[in-house]
């Protein structure tokens, strides 16, 4: 009588996407944030195009990290406050479905839009054009990992009010490898090296994250919910 796993997953993703549409502009938020960062940095540094171009990759990747991080503290919060997570837990469906569904919809609403608008930011920051494809590839391989790891931390802190910065503290160290390899790939390309090694590492991290993090997220959700 109960729905199968695939159906449940679909229903949950459907809900997330519908909510993202309803809460108008939520989709646009990480984008706006990155836009502002790319605007603020030139202002703070003074517009030396060469200097700017040299640090463009850094700005875009650090910006993306921070943008994703900022979405995390709200990722499960409202579901917890209105009792929806509690209901999911009592539903008997495996929590790992919740974790997978939310990771996926989170990427769709943050990583993907960032990826799509990156060419614009890059040209704004005078990034040399031949680096664009590598940058995009690094984002394609890196942002899913950000969503997957971010979900663990969001789940761990779901029982804590005002968790914004705790989330940052917990998640950014875990994001360091992604950042290193992603920026490393583009910098290697810029220095005339092959970016392949870095990209392969990114892919490896993504695969590992995809297989392991949902379990951690599910466990974290169960534990956090039973804490009060």
């Amino acid at each position: 009588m109960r729905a199968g796993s695939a159906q449940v997953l679909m229903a949950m993703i459907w809900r997330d996407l519908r909510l993202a549409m309803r809460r108008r502009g939520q989709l646009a938020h990480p984008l706006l944030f990155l836009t502002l960062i790319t605007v603020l940095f030139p202002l703070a540094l003074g517009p030396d195009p060469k200097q700017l171009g040299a640090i463009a990759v850094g700005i875009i990747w650090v910006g993306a990290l921070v943008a994703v991080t900022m979405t995390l503290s709200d990722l499960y919060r409202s579901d917890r406050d209105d009792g929806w997570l509690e209901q999911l837990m009592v539903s008997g469906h495996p929590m790992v479905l919740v974790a997978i569904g939310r990771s996926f919809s989170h990427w769709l609403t943050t990583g993907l839009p960032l990826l799509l608008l990156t060419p614009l930011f890059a040209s704004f920051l005078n990034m040399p054009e031949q680096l664009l494809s590598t940058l995009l590839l690094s984002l394609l391989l890196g942002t899913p990992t950000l969503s997957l790891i971010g979900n663990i931390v969001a789940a761990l802190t779901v029982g804590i009010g005002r968790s914004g910065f705790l989330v940052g503290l917990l998640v950014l160290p875990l994001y360091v490898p992604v950042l290193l390899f992603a920026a490393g790939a583009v910098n290697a390309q810029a220095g005339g090296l092959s970016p392949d090694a870095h990209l392969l590492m990114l892919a490896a991290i993504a695969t590992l994250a995809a297989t392991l993090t949902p379990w951690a997220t599910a466990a974290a959700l169960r534990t956090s919910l039973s804490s009060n």
Partner: protein
Amino acid sequence: MTPTRRRRLLIVLSIIVGAGLATTLVVFALKENMLFFYRPAEVAQGLAPVDTAFRMGGMVVDGSVVRADDSLAVQFDLTDYQETITVQYEGILPDLFREGQGIIAQGKLSTQGVERPVFEASEVLAKHDETYMPPEVADALEQSKAARGETTP
């Protein structure tokens, strides 16, 4: 197979596949060079970037260190026993900096006005190996090696 058993099997399988795939990717990745780190030979062959800062590592050539009298400027040659590149630096050198010592220099290549590229270092760091021993032991080792006709690396 009961549904729970089948689910468990699926879970274990997917984790094994995922971990395996990840390891393969890592193995491939580690085969490639991932760093901005060049030896003098590579620099001489023109493999190093021109506008970007990178690191160069090697040994300080014996007798090549020239210090300026009125400033902290210093010039020396760096070798990997194949090629030699001249390095210019202005600043305080680390204690371990001496002739015959391994160092890592961070900086850019300058090709202006010289036929051989000169490395303008913004930072010179000493890289020592992982060997620790008392000076007497080092001397003794030196002598026995010399007796056997080897040179210290």
